[in-house]
């Protein structure tokens, strides 16, 4: 029973890892194919915009996969092959956006918010602990007693 379960889990995992790459697209050179898959996983499919071209079954993704493999076979470096695609489709095809002035807000705003809120919390807590409770004066104590009696 447990064995069957483990097998099922492994099988499900394997199904998830399945890429859309068709056997006919694959390069015979395993090193080149591995590089092509690594590049393809970084590139966004323009048709179904949250999938990489390695995962997508769209026609354009297929064409781009074949294109990447052609570029690598022709001797392009990984960076050259990626640039070939970004020259045509812009930085948006990169699933991981590059760190450049236009994306500083995207990359650094979470840290900025963290720093700001930490600073705010620090000031708040410091002020709170800096002001110790003062004992009630006579008038306040009388008022408190009155209020407590009213409650009963």
């Amino acid at each position, binding site marked *: 029973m447990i064995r069957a379960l483990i097998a099922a889990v492994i099988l499900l995992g394997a199904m998830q890892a399945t890429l859309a790459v068709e056997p006919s697209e694959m390069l015979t050179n395993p090193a080149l194919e591995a590089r092509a898959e690594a590049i393809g996983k970084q590139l966004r499919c323009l048709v179904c915009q949250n999938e990489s071209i390695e995962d997508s079954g769209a026609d354009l993704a297929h064409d781009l996969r074949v294109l990447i493999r052609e570029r690598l076979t022709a001797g392009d470096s990984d960076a050259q092959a990626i640039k070939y695609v970004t020259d*045509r489709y*812009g930085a948006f095809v990169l699933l991981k956006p590059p760190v450049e002035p236009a994306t500083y807000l995207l990359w650094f705003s979470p840290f900025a918010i963290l720093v700001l809120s930490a600073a705010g919390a620090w000031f708040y807590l410091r002020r709170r602990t800096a002001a110790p409770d003062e004992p009630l004066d006579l008038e306040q104590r009388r008022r408190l007693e009155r209020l407590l009696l009213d409650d009963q």
Partner: protein
Amino acid sequence: MSWRRTTYLLPMVAFAAFAVYLSHGLAPGYNPELLPSALIDKPAPAFDLAGLKGEARLTNRAFSDEIVFVNFFASWCVPCRQESPVLMDLSRRNVIVLYGIDYKDKPADAEKFLQQYGDPYRRIGVDDSGRTAINFGVYGVPETYAIDRTGHIRWRHVGPLTDEVVKNEILPLLQQLGAS
């Protein structure tokens, strides 16, 4: 110490500013899938395509000293049927010079499509492999590009052309580029 009394407003102000910023994403007509072309103001990619119906080959060298529009279409593309009347109207009124690139299509199907919906193009190239489309940065058909007299891409539209696009984008563009 009046600033102390107002600091409690600070988070609210910050939140309001952030909400206004995010609300841009909800603006009507905003489509996050539409992106500017990476090729705007860059030279149009070179291409050399077989002509449809045995016509002469279509190459980018055919675009000389005039503002041309290049429309990627296919007979299997439903929005292309939708934009066809707009293209026919532009072509009939000689508003633009329009070239067609038949994207991943069977020539026979394309010819049937043009017979049925009309042929607004001056000439048509057949992009069987889809490589010319990739060089232009095409996401999917229909897509339309404007190329100026110096061969630079100046404008791109994703999806079917409509009368609104003609009025709000194409006509001002022609004026800006100095159509004669």
